[in-house]
């Protein structure tokens, strides 16, 4: 399938962060329409449900359904948290959305808040995003000046404050409930669910949490209509997705494709296959938390369910291409070090299990491993998958099992006996 640009439509224009230029290309038209036509909020939620817009942060939860969980008659304030933590190794789509088209995100935020009845939106940005922070803050200021955010927007009586909150650089703070604790000034430890944030979220108030890309898609749904948007994708996954290809691809970069495009097509047709004519060893399809695929396993549609059926995940859509020169035990060691370091340490299986796997992986990569170490990994990994507070443990466990099972010979070659 050819590229189909919705959220990345205006990436090519350097002046897109300027509100006048953005408006000349259609920015805020849907937001103005919502206000002038006084579209009922429920209709917007219905439209987003019809559009089959799925969460683009990794889990793929239908956005409209999530919004519908927020109580309509809550006596407490409600909040929107835009997840701009983008910590998943391999992922670089949200940064582009923030830097290249901040007004698209702000318009999405405004429409989402209007639909759910929210008057304060936070953008939780990872601590290293200095440049995106500057650009988005600038965009907020411009939009306020234009009367598109702030008090009594366009005389509608609707107020909306958008606040950027910078994280301190922990991967776990991208997990939605750790994000809430961090936002509140606490330690970035995930919370027990239930209660879900839609009922008890930021400051104990109902809260919608969505990824940058998810929210950026909202204006397009209003522009096209939910049905048209849904038609682009597959039966369950509407619209497009920004796929980020990195590693040993000939043409690494961001590609916006309809949901359901095959992974093989993404790697070979769009990203040009493996660079320098080398052979392909493997692809990590959706960020480091998704189980690795061998070259003969790439013919899968890029949609949430199909990827699950294939034993992996769509994740954040960040495909890492690994050529034949790559040592999988080395990749495994680096990857497990990341999770061992980023485990928040709150719950036992993840805290201890990730480190145990990392130390074992290191031992193997350094040539001191034994075959029994591989069996140990296969034995303990399932014990921190699903037994934990949040899915960080699973994010190492599943890829660890896949790597050891699929590349066992390569691991064994590193062992003395």
């Amino acid at each position, binding site marked *: 399938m050819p590229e189909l640009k919705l959220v990345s439509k205006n990436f090519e224009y350097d002046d897109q962060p300027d509100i006048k230029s953005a408006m000349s290309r259609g920015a805020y038209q849907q937001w103005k329409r919502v206000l002038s036509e006084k579209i009922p909020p429920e209709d917007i939620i219905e439209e987003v449900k019809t559009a089959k817009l799925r969460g683009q942060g990794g889990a793929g939860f239908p956005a409209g359904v999530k919004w519908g969980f927020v109580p309509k008659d809550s006596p407490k304030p409600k909040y929107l948290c835009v997840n701009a933590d983008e910590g998943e190794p391999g992922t670089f789509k949200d940064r582009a959305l923030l830097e290249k088209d901040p007004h698209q995100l702000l318009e999405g935020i405004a429409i989402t808040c209007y639909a759910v009845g929210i008057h304060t939106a936070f953008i939780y940005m990872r601590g290293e995003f200095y440049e995106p922070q500057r650009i988005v803050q600038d965009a907020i200021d411009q939009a306020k000046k234009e009367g598109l955010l702030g008090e009594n927007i366009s005389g509608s009586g609707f107020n909306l404050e958008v606040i950027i909150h910078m994280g301190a650089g922990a991967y776990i703070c991208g997990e939605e409930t750790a994000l809430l604790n961090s936002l509140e000034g606490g330690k970035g430890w995930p919370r027990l669910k239930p209660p879900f944030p839609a009922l008890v979220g930021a400051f104990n108030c109902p809260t919608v949490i969505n990824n940058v890309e998810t929210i950026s898609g909202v204006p397009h749904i209003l522009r096209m209509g939910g049905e048209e948007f849904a038609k682009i994708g597959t039966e369950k996954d509407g619209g497009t997705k920004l796929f980020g290809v990195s590693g040993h691809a000939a043409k690494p970069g961001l590609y916006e494709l309809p949901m359901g495009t095959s992974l093989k097509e993404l790697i070979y047709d769009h990203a040009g296959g493996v660079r320098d004519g080398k052979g392909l060893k493997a692809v990590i399809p959706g960020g480091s938390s998704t189980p690795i695929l061998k070259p003969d396993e790439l013919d899968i549609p890029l949609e949430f369910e199909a990827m699950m059926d294939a034993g992996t995940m769509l994740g954040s859509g960040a495909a890492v291409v690994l050529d034949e020169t790559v040592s999988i035990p080395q990749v495994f060691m680096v990857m497990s070090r990341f999770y061992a370091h980023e*485990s928040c340490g709150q719950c036992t299986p993840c*805290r201890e299990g990730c480190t145990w796997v990392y130390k074992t992986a290191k*031992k193997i990569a350094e040539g001191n491993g034994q075959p029994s170490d591989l069996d140990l990994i296969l034995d*303990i990994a399932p014990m921190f998958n699903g*037994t*934990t*507070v949040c899915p960080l443990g699973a994010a190492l466990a599943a890829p660890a099992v896949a790597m050891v099972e699929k590349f066992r010979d390569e691991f064994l070659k590193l062992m003395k006996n």
Partner: protein
Amino acid sequence: MPEIIINDQQIEVPEGTNLILAARKLGIDIPHFCYHPGLSVAGSCRMCQVEIEQNGRKRIDLACTNPAQDGMTVKTDSPEVKGIVKAVLEFLLLNHPTDCPICDDAGECKLQDYYMLHGLYDNRLNVDKWHKPKVHRAGPNVMLDAERCVLCGRCVRFCDEIWGEKQLGIFGHGSDEVLMNYPGKDLDNPYSGNVVDLCPVGALLDRDFHFQRRSWYLKSVKSICPSCSRGCNTYIHFDTDHDYKSAGKRIMRLKPRYNVDVNRWWICDRGRYGYSSIDNPNRALTPLIAGGETGWEQALTKSETLIRSSLKKPGPDGLALLMAPNATNEDVYLALRLFRDTVKFANLGYDIPSMEKLAADNILLTDDPYPNRRGFKDLGFGSISNTSEAAEIIEAIFAGQIKGLVVCGTNLEGMLGNQIDNLIAKLDWLIVLDTHKSSLMDKASVALPLALPAEREGTFTNVKGLVQKFEKAVEPTGQSLPLWEVLQRLGKRLNAKWSFEETHTVFKSLAEDKPEYDTLNWLATFGVNKGLYLDSW
């Protein structure tokens, strides 16, 4: 009330009861580290996994976070549950130093217990263990071995939720995480010792108990803390068989005993660490006459003679009894029967102004350092004259109106300072009964040594009017005796018409006059126990 089935047994529990509590009602212990009924639910140790079948669907989930819901079927022993519990335990023990032979908590440690119950696997550690601070002073009473910590967070939540100030925290992330003092904070809250009880392993330890005794040597009796009028329920842990380490030290520590109406799971540090006054070189060991050691017979004969000599002149108005409200109800009862009813002293005082000002808080501590003021009031002490104020009695002595004085456990020297000799000079005689040596005892005509609550049984009535019994842990020090027994012996000499052989018969008689006190079923109680009652969670 929801009705559920746990391991094929049916049980009905109040709405909101979680599965750990529900199972415990059936005698089934679901292993857990972070859950404690007195703290908020953290759900972080992941040890309490069970299988829950509900609405036709099965899932593995936590027992601590799931309230019992009608129709739930819970299994704590399915193969899958057992596998996960074992795995979580293996994770927790992986980096544990396993230095049980030098750990005070050995014998009371959840890691040990759960390994025997749910572990019993061979060690698979194939990499180096991490190391963390091994000996750290967490506060004036508590030390920390961070390597042993399982990061359950109970101690942190205790400081946050019960005391109300962050003094401990869990810092870092991943397996570098470490429990430590909050930056710039000492673990110095007046309830700090409770974190030692809460700690499921040997990470937080009582500094006073460090290396003192193996826990399995300790015996335990149920007691009541005598350090303030709250009357917190305690256990006295003692050992008289292994004093190779600390000769003469019998009481090893005090631990809180759960009582939902009084102290729940907690006691304050003042009460907890106050036991050092018991096995103390300053205890009064023998009766004294004019400062010289003697036996009970001689001392009691002397006391009898002094009291008899004054009954005509100066007579009842010239005689006084001063007691501190730390005597038991049985003591008070016999004191009244002797001094008020038999020899008819006109001046009875107990309202001693306390030397020590306690800061009451809204947790447990009251501002009254005496355990039985309420009992004195209830039993009518001082009501026969207007001289229930100790200060008035002292004034009357200085005015030459009172010539004979019996003093029980009051710190008159502390009250009067260098006026004490002037006071004594005004008296014909002074009889002092006390637990600890003092210059007042040396100066008294007769001095009689008393046993402490740990050395006898009895009852105190707490600030809310609850009558609570405590048991005897160890024998009275030296020749000391419980006060009621001294009063019994003296009464016999002074022709009292009553006679009691045991504490509980005194109480029975007391309760006949005071029916509210009859709610305590004396016989349905306790006895010395081998092993520990830690009300363990």
